[in-house]
């Protein structure tokens, strides 16, 4: 072996010594870049909390700044963990998620000040506690799952887990109903957790594994019609099952947004796995058909559609259950913000109902203005683009599908919430990833960060040989 390695290299290459396998590995470079961006992110988070205090209180209160600093320490903990177990992971995901999480905390804190909450009553303190739990979950994800292909083995278990998580809120005893949607579980009187958020990760794992195993029959055969190859009737099974599942979510859990999220996730992964547009056409027509029937028969869906189409009429604005008061207040808030916003701590975001969870983007839009909302959307865009890039660069089909699926859930969720608040689509109750108050959403999204980091590490860690001709 060694004699061949040390042989005199033939012609041309004499100038460059035979290098054997060239591994593109720049762990220190990537991690150092991440460290700089993280420091920047923590600076932004501290600045946002200080600005809220200056704007709303006029003084600086060190207590919450200290809590925020504790959170920064945890983020750096994740960074240090990655230096050991995921040295080649993507350096952008963590700083972006940190900034979004920090902006969310600052805005929730600002609304606490307006509503006079403090201590454990304060949503901001709870949000910081949940963020700490979520980041610990991300660290656990990246330390425990050393190779994403482990998840491939548990494809059907993940599917079962998703179903169980979806059914949990419907069970008497632990299920809780909040604002009409039965998607919470809790102990006693407090609704504490939305299992559906975790279910979306389990579903992404299940869909990826299932499609890798079965995509041949879904993509190869079928009859051509209208320039597209349509699947055979008997291959429609999976699509119909997921459609029925999301319709069940609409009917029993009364949650339009979650149903749209699950179904959209499945359609996109199906499209990526088979590259056939006919699945998207079939799926979308099924879902729109189902949603239209729901709009005719279910009161809450009908209200959402009416509010979307005509929010400013007196009748809709004053309708007591399911009126458009919240939607209109959010729009007024965004309008009040204008181009550069009223300034952190100086707007009136608390006039809108639930300004810290579903409507956090309207609150941020009021105080940071169009410029701030665009920056936030740009951060989401970069996050999702990194996720797609990780999926695209993957060497194995399961990793590819999982990467695309996980980042698409973030993208679709942002679209559903922000689109609902800004009246692009009917308003549905979903959380804005990383920003909105809510523990389950934070935990789920930080686990997604952990999984994407793990995927990107596996991909870059691959040995590579570069031959420049």
């Amino acid at each position, binding site marked *: 072996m060694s004699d061949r390695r040390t*042989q005199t*290299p*033939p012609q041309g290459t004499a100038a460059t010594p035979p290098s054997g396998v060239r591994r593109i590995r720049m762990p220190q470079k990537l991690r150092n870049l991440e460290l700089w961006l993280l420091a920047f992110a923590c600076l932004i988070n501290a600045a946002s909390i200080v600005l809220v205090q200056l704007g709303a209180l006029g003084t600086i209160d060190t207590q919450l700044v200290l809590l925020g600093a504790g959170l920064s320490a945890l983020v750096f903990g994740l960074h240090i963990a990655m230096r050991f177990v995921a040295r080649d992971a993507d350096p952008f995901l963590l700083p972006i998620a940190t900034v979004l999480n920090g902006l969310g905390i600052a805005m929730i804190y600002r609304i606490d000040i307006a509503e006079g909450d403090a201590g454990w009553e304060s949503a901001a303190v709870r949000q910081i506690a949940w963020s700490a739990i979520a980041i610990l979950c991300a660290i656990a994800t990246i330390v425990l799952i050393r190779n994403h292909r482990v998840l491939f083995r548990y494809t059907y278990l993940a599917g079962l887990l998703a179903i169980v998580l979806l059914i949990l809120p419907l069970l008497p005893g632990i299920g809780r109903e909040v604002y009409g949607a039965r998607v919470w579980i809790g102990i006693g009187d407090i609704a504490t957790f939305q299992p559906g958020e975790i279910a979306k990760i389990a579903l992404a794992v299940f869909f990826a594994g299932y499609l890798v195993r079965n995509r041949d029959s879904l993509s190869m055969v079928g009859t051509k019609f209208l320039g597209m190859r349509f699947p055979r009737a008997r291959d429609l099974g999976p699509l119909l099952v997921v459609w029925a599942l999301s319709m069940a979510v609409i009917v029993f859990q009364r949650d339009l947004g979650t149903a749209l999220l699950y179904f959209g996730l499945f359609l996109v992964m199906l499209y990526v796995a088979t590259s056939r547009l006919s699945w998207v056409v079939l799926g979308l027509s099924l879902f729109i058909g189902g949603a239209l029937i729901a709009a005719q028969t279910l009161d809450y869906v009908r209200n959402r559609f009416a509010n979307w189409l005509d929010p400013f009429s007196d009748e809709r604005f004053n309708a007591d259950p399911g009126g458009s008061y919240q939607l209109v207040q959010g729009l007024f808030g965004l309008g009040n913000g204008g181009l*550069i916003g009223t300034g952190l701590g100086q707007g009136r975001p608390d006039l809108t109902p639930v300004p810290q969870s579903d409507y956090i983007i309207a609150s941020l839009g009021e105080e940071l203005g169009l410029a701030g909302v665009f920056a936030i959307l740009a*951060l989401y865009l970069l996050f999702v683009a990194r996720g797609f890039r990780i999926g695209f660069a993957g*060497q194995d089909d399961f990793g590819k599908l999982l990467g695309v699926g996980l980042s698409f859930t973030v993208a679709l969720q942002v679209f559903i919430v922000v689109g609902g608040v800004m009246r692009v689509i009917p308003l549905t109750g979903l959380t804005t990833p990383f920003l909105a108050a809510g523990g389950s959403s934070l935990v789920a999204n930080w686990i997604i960060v952990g999984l994407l980091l793990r995927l990107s590490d596996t991909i870059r860690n691959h040995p590579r040989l570069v031959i420049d001709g």
Partner: protein
Amino acid sequence: MSELTLLVLQLGFLLLLWVFVFAIVYALRSDLFGQRVRKLPETAAASASAAPVASAFPSSPVSQAPTEAVNRPAAASGSDGGVATTESASRLVITSGQKAGSEFPLGRDEITIGRSSDSAIIIRDDYTSTHHARLMLWNGRWMIQDLDSTNGTFLDGSRVTVPTPVPLGATVKVGATTFELRR
């Protein structure tokens, strides 16, 4: 705290947010605009143009060294019909072309070959397609599959049309580069 100070602070904060966004965009610019073209040293550039010629005429003196070095072990193990499996093959050896003599470890993952920077083996020459071919594992056996490349993939001189098992020591040709799987 005066109105003006707060306005200046607000503008400063928005600026900070956007600087962060653009810092990230700047850091990943190579993803958006492709990798910077590296200037090859003079001799390497000359050999780059010679490389395709060398593989086109294997008897020409310039390529004598690599072919000889390569034929020795090939003759020893020979194209003995033993199919390369995860047990029998441990490395991929480049036998001619720019990086002749280089080795690449065979793991349990498929190996993509092409000009794209996502490939495991990146061959940047005029004859290689972006996603040219891949070596994949079917029940532990290494198979070569051509991914609709323009110039084709050749196994022992014949063009690969369907996924084909690769025997140990058989020559696979992609663009101007040939390689073998060895123990």
